[in-house]
């Protein structure tokens, strides 16, 4: 099996290298020979995907066949590993995850090369760029991190097993989503660089890549949030975001990608920000690479990072070469990127996009700065310092609040120019509603001036509600116009409005989701926790809950042994649920894993939902009784709800617009078409 895998990887490298070199040669000519050469390059790119797919299938099959002669399988699998996790073996280690990167890139390239007739020359340029990236990954796979390396010496009877932290259902989904996001940004990057190289006229490349970018962004969003949820549900520390360098690495391309999704609208609609957009997508791609580099180089210590290895140097060389290529073609062809329009007014959608981009980039810079400051400190001061959550929370939160304010105000601004009167008219009611929420919070005992975290929480609540109210008001306002002219009821009119401009209203729904996420985060300062050793019948009181230990026990199965407690949860004297916090000990790796149990109080609290989060900390060896830690985390379930709303909004934004309909109008009035602007 390993020979087939190794051969497939070598073949893939050869085909990708051909696709790259022949693709470049073909771009120089426009004669029939060059066309034929270009076609062979395209087909080689498609075939390379087949070869990488074969290698990936061989690796997964080797995991299923418990082929421990392959070192990667020995290190990341074992005989008792459940089948679903044997799939996850593909991305659970350094070599396999690089193969997975290459597979996804091949898949994206495959789709792109099949759709080449949209614009053959632009697609040929993009195909060459993708082939270049693919060559880089396949070189690493063949020469530096070979997934089919053979074990030396006697064949081991069993493998080391998959890292226990990865043996969780979400781990089968989280890395592929994150990788689809990281890798997916290669496509808009390839089109952008291709368009720059060939001085592509107009904004068609942006129209072509818009859906790619949105899909990629959606995958990255899901990946980032699944990672947060995994940390929450598996790591057992009661939080979901620790500002770990690897978490930060996934956040940075998300921030620049979000900026790109916004600013690209200015190029589409007004022919502005061409240079800016070009560099935004270049930066997003490079940050995706930086994220991959961070997890693999060992340059920054992280709980997520793979083992230290020499492949960091490969990434540095690749990133430098990529940056140099971008700079070269930018300098050569920058005259092609002149803006076509001027800004007409400071209060306009255009300027709000500029400030939105600024804040997203400052947020990205802050995360980058904090992530790399320990290295800088070591260079300058001779010793490392820790840059952890307290730093990021204090520095990033003000920027995030400003961003939230713009998210609320931005959609109310018109393109070109907005009169202050219309801004007041559209903004007044949402603002009154949002401020009322702040007042209600103060009435119910939140003291914003008592502690900075309470101040931030209050501001975040007010601004999130402002976003939600402006989104609702925009739907109602647009719906009323349609309802007034077409005799539909308001809800049907709003649905119709949404369908007529899916991008705009899908975007508003994404904003709504973002506001829900912020509402979920703002509960953090109000978290509570209690830790106690619990014997039979012992109680913990936390918030409105009384936890009673009914029993505790242990079990054994082929993959792991476990201990858990049975905790009855009472609220207002009535039992609401039973929870089973658990701790496992995996036999092959000898590593423990905590499995917290979470009870969200949707039924009891609805909007002010709180997670009751129980962790089995371990056993007091003297008394033999379990130590249970209970957390009360207000509002956290809104984070995951917000993600679902964001994904739903993105999917609806991808649906093509319905054609404007001619509405029924009273006699003696000219028929008119109702359209929706963006």
């Amino acid at each position, binding site marked *: 099996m390993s020979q087939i895998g190794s051969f497939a990887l070598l073949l893939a490298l050869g085909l990708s290298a051909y696709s790259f070199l022949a693709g470049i040669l073909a771009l120089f000519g426009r004669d029939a020979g060059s066309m034929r050469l270009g076609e062979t390059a395209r087909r080689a790119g498609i075939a390379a995907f087949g070869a990488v797919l074969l290698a990936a299938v061989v690796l997964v099959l080797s995991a299923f066949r418990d082929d421990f002669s392959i070192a990667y399988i020995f290190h990341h699998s074992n005989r008792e590993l459940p089948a679903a996790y044997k799939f996850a073996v593909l991305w659970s280690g350094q070599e396999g995850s690089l193969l997975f990167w290459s597979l996804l890139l091949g898949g994206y390239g495959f789709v792109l090369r099949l759709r080449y007739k949209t614009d053959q020359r632009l697609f040929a340029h993009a195909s060459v760029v993708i082939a270049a990236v693919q060559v880089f990954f396949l070189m690493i796979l063949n020469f530096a991190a070979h997934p089919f390396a053979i074990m030396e010496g006697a064949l081991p009877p069993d493998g080391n097993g998959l890292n226990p932290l990865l043996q969780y259902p979400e781990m089968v989904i989280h890395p592929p989503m994150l990788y689809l996001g990281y890798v997916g940004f290669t496509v808009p990057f390839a089109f952008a660089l291709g368009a720059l190289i060939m001085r592509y006229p107009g904004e068609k490349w942006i129209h072509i890549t818009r859906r790619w970018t949105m899909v990629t962004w959606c995958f990255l969003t899901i990946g980032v949030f699944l990672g947060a949820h995994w940390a929450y549900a598996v*790591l057992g520390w009661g939080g979901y975001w620790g500002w770990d360098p690897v978490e930060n690495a996934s956040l940075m391309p998300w921030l620049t990608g979000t900026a790109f999704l916004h600013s690209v609208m200015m190029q589409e609609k007004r022919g502005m920000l061409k240079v800016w957009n070009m560099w935004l997508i270049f930066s997003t791609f490079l940050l995706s690479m930086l994220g991959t580099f961070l997890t693999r180089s060992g340059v920054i*210590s992280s709980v997520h990072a793979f083992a230290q290895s020499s492949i960091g140097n490969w990434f540095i060389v690749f990133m430098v070469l990529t940056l140099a290529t971008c700079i070269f073609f930018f300098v050569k062809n920058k005259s092609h990127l002149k803006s076509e329009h001027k800004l*007409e007014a400071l209060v306009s959608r255009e300027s709000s996009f500029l400030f939105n981009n600024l804040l997203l980039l*400052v947020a990205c810079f802050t995360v980058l700065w904090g992530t790399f400051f320990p290295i800088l400190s070591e260079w*300058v*001061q001779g010793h490392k310092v820790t840059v952890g959550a307290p*730093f990021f929370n*204090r520095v990033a939160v003000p920027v995030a609040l400003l961003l939230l304010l713009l998210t609320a105000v931005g959609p109310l601004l018109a393109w070109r120019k907005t009169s202050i009167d219309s801004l007041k008219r559209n903004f007044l009611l949402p603002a009154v509603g949002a401020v009322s929420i702040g007042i209600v919070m103060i009435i119910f005992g939140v003291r914003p001036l008592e502690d900075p975290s309470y101040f931030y929480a209050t501001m975040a609540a007010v601004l999130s509600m402002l976003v939600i109210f402006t989104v609702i008001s925009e739907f109602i306002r647009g719906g009323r116009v349609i309802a007034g002219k077409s005799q539909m009821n308001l809800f049907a009119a709003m649905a119709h409005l949404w369908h007529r401009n899916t991008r705009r209203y899908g975007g508003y729904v994404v904003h709504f989701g973002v506001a829900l996420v912020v509402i979920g985060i703002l509960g953090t300062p109000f978290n509570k926790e209690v830790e106690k050793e619990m014997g039979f019948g012992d109680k913990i009181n936390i918030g409105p809950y009384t936890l009673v230990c009914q029993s505790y026990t242990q079990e054994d199965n082929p993959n792991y042994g476990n201990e858990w407690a049975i905790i009855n949860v009472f609220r207002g004297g009535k039992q609401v649920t039973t929870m089973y916090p658990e701790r496992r000990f995996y036999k092959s790796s000898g590593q423990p894993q905590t499995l917290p149990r979470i009870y969200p109080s949707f039924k009891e609290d609805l909007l002010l939902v709180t997670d009751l989060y129980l962790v089995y900390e371990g056993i007091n060896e003297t008394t033999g009784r379990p130590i249970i830690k209970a957390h009360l985390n207000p509002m956290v379930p809104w984070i995951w709800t917000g993600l679902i709303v964001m994904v739903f909004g993105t999917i609806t934004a991808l649906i093509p617009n319905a054609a404007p309909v001619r509405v029924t109008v009273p006699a003696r009035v000219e028929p008119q078409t109702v359209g929706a602007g963006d």
Partner: protein
Amino acid sequence: MGAGDDARFNKIGHSMMCTCGCGQILLECNHVGCQSSDKMRNELIAALDRGDNNDLIMQGFVQNYGPTVIAAPTATGFNRVAWIMPFVALTLGMAFVVAVVRSWKNKPTPALADGITISDGDELDDYKRKARKETDQ
């Protein structure tokens, strides 16, 4: 510990890192049998019981465990740069965007082909009012 000490324990414990290599905040480390966090928590409780002030407690931890025990850069020496830079970036960025917006606003309008005129000023506002009236109704 009294009620006030509980709050201080919580605050200081959340501003320090566990030194076992888990990369977690001291009071959030939940590793089975983590020797570092249990020991550090006990040291923190002892310092609070002795009546040490926050600075003294932090200094003691830095002496014992090195500067990486503090979860965020201190506001001293070169570490100040860590705190200042994001706000410098925000300020410079704001200034840059304002300058860009102004320069764009002052950019001359491209010449139009003969016979084409663009409404401006009151005339344009009238058109906009009419359009708004039609869409708001």
